[in-house]
């Protein structure tokens, strides 16, 4: 039982928190701009590597590099929008999707070019886990969960208490009506990119802290992010957050040896959990838990 909590549930919560931040941004972008942003994973990798550059150059800890990573990722998202997506705004959502695929490839190529293809890390060294009775928890895991909770709270306040956040929700509800009420659509779109980029950059640093960095790391979590967003109900940020948490737990629990000594699912196929969740959602509840758009 304790093994379940220590080695499966807690790591699942950590992975879930990372997916949640990614899926929330994905859902926000989908809600406001109505297209599936396929470069989202690569933005995440960009954030992780931006933090790596700061760690290497300034000798700071990756936690301290989070604001730098976020600040570096926002302009990339804004540039992709200004250079490419803004020019395609009147096209079909599919065209924007293909364009974002191209953006993702460009970001990934840039990371490969600068940092090379090999795995790397923030070099944090080993810290012994906290022992709370029978519970053993990695300190970095605690920080990741706390960080995700703070990010969720900040997003909640932004969306419900601020004028700009309300405008984002209004755009997601009905873009035409938002225009009639005088919302500066271009400004809301920029804000949405900024929020999504900050969230996904933090998720990237967290993922780098929890595991390793590779330029392809973002593309690898893209499927999970989408599965989480669709499970939650696409366009609904809180749905994305919940979907991310559930999916992260499901992925870790999938390798739990429930029956006999063998894991439920070979760890090599962990990615398959996201796909299975996606397929089951599409079959059983295509609008997602929170009734997406």
């Amino acid at each position, binding site marked *: 039982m304790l093994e379940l909590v220590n080695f499966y549930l807690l790591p699942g919560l950590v992975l879930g928190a990372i997916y949640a931040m990614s899926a929330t941004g994905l859902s926000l972008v989908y809600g406001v701009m109505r297209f599936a942003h396929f470069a989202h994973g690569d933005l995440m990798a960009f954030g992780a590597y931006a933090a790596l550059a700061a760690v290497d150059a300034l000798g700071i800890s990756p936690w301290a590099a989070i604001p730098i990573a976020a600040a570096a990722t926002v302009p990339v998202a804004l540039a992709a929008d200004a250079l490419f997506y803004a020019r395609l705004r009147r096209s079909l959502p599919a065209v924007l999707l293909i364009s974002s695929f191209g953006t993702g490839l460009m970001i990934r190529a840039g990371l490969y070019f600068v940092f090379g293809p090999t795995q790397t890390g923030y070099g944090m060294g080993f810290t012994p886990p906290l022992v709370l009775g029978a519970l053993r928890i990695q300190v970095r895991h605690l920080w990741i969960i706390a960080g995700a909770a703070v990010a969720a709270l900040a997003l909640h306040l932004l969306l419900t208490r601020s*004028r700009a956040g*309300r405008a984002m929700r209004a755009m*997601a*509800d009905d873009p035409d009506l938002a225009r009639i009420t005088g919302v500066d659509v271009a400004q809301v779109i920029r804000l949405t990119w900024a929020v999504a980029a900050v969230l996904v950059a933090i998720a990237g640093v967290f993922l780098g802290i929890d595991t390793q960095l590779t330029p392809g790391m973002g593309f690898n979590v893209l499927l999970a992010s989408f599965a989480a967003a669709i499970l939650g109900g696409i366009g609904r940020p809180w749905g994305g957050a919940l979907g991310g948490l559930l999916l992260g737990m499901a992925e870790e629990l999938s390798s739990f040896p429930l029956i006999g000594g063998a894991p439920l699912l070979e760890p090599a196929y962990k990615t398959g959990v996201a796909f299975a969740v996606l397929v089951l959602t599409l079959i059983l509840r295509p609008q997602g838990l929170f009734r997406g758009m």
Partner: protein
Amino acid sequence: MALLEVRGVVGGYGEADILHGVDLDADAGEIVVIVGANGAGKSTLMKAVAGLVRIRAGSIAFAGEAIANAPAETMILRGLAYVPQERNVFPSLTVEENLAMGAYARPAQAAAGMARVFALFPDLVQRRRVAAGQLSGGQRQMVAIGRALMLEPRLIMLDEPTAGLSPKFCALIFERVQAIAREGVAVLMVEQNARPALAIADRGVVLAMGRNRATAPGPALLADPEIGRLFLGG
């Protein structure tokens, strides 16, 4: 010179013109009701004034300023508010948040605007924290009209405000429309419920096939047997 002056407007969606040269005036404090058969161009005319439909010829002046084809998001700051027929509230936002969106362009006026709207539609007060998507049709219409009134517009355009409402709510909406006009706001209204609407109209405009068919005070149109037979269902 009238507050709103529409002259010879030609336009529509894509290649197809729906309006073939329409004129329209509305003065401060006046209720103007547009009637006509389906496809006559009533809603399109309103959308053209609101900046949502491009016009290819003609002119639209508001308070002496040319506003034809100005971006829709700038209209509210000119004092011109528009309530579409459907999808006229943000369903996932609460009543209060919907009203706050009405003051998006001038947040400083939100508190005062909300007080006025709640005075006009007291039913909304106790539902202020309910998501607009969960309201009844009549209450939703109140939220939509309230949202449009938040920045004290000089002209409010209502596209079929009573569509699908019970007779009780219809009467309430018409009564409130008169109250709004008494404050000096010009009200431009498209109505399927043509008879009760024309009864309160200072000016009735009959459109047919994208052209003006007749313009007269509402009661005079009601009294005209030919108009009644052709456009008001006998």
